[in-house]
């Protein structure tokens, strides 16, 4: 993300994420089937469609306002746990970015840190509990350490893969205990898609 993220870039990012969620909705729902209620992919798909419509209607002027609007929309439209969690991540990140017209990778990392802290405060999950935090935290840390968005996306993907071998300690998946080992957390998988969508804009002129 050498050119900084503008409002248009942030919308392109969320558009790419929505497309990725559409493409992977069946996979995400399959991940949710053994341990959840098989609604993660569908819920996120519904939420992101509402986000794109809300952004079209509101046309926010800054990247912070784009993320704030997207987060608020997710909180009010998803209905499942991914609404408050992804919604809080984007809302609090958006608020932290303030009214800057564009943000570079380091500033985005600082904003996402505020979002990550809000998510852990909300759900109580830490790294190692087999939740979206396992993908989110390493991506944020990578950006904070001066990493590129591509490196952050790689960190998120590794974090999501790490949940394969973890025992879930939060949410309904925790009822499974050790039977959940060998299974990827759907929230971590969709978080990896969020950062992959961010990295996909790099060099394409969109960000």
């Amino acid at each position, binding site marked *: 993300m050498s050119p900084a993220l503008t409002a248009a870039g942030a919308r392109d990012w969320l558009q790419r994420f929505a497309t990725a969620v559409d493409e992977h909705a069946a996979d995400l729902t399959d991940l949710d089937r053994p341990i959840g209620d098989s609604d993660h992919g569908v*819920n996120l798909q519904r939420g992101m469609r509402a986000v794109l419509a809300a952004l079209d209607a509101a046309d926010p002027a800054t990247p912070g306002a784009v993320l704030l609007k997207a987060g608020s929309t997710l909180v009010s439209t998803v*209905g499942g*746990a991914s*609404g408050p*969690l992804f919604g*809080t991540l984007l809302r609090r990140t958006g608020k932290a970015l303030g009214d800057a017209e564009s943000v570079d990778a380091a500033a985005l990392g600082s904003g996402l840190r505020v979002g990550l802290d809000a998510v852990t405060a*909300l759900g109580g999950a830490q790294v190692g509990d087999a939740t979206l935090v396992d993908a989110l935290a390493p991506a944020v840390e990578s950006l904070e350490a001066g990493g590129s968005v591509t490196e952050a996306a790689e960190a998120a993907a590794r974090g999501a893969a790490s949940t394969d071998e973890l025992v879930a300690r939060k949410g309904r998946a925790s009822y499974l205990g050790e039977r959940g080992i060998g299974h990827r957390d759907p929230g971590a998988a969709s978080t990896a898609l969020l950062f992959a969508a961010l990295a996909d804009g790099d060099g394409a002129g969109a960000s």
Partner: protein
Amino acid sequence: MSVRVVLLSHSADVARGVADLAGQMASTATVVPVGGTADGRLGTDADALEAAVEAGLAAGEEVAVLVDLGSAVLTARTVLAELPAGAGVALVDAPFVEGAVAAVVTASTGAGLAEVVAQAELARDLRKG
């Protein structure tokens, strides 16, 4: 100051049914069921919860929020986190049905928010076997 009891469930039927059950025992308290999503699915609706809480505050009441499962807790925490400090709204850490009955009965005696919350949270320790 009277206490309004808001019941947040994934299911409109569950929220309404528990409100009926609790209201039958204490008809003077205000009980507001908030269940399901805006488009009629199972899930929790942050906007509807916020509206129910704000209506209570606008009426000069305190508000006790009881929630059922998983994401209902997250939705309630998200909505309550946006309220100003000291707004007179509490998320009650209690089983949904038993806590709702205890909260509504206590609220109907004219008790304040702290006592409503305390009585509802005692429902956690009700053994059934």
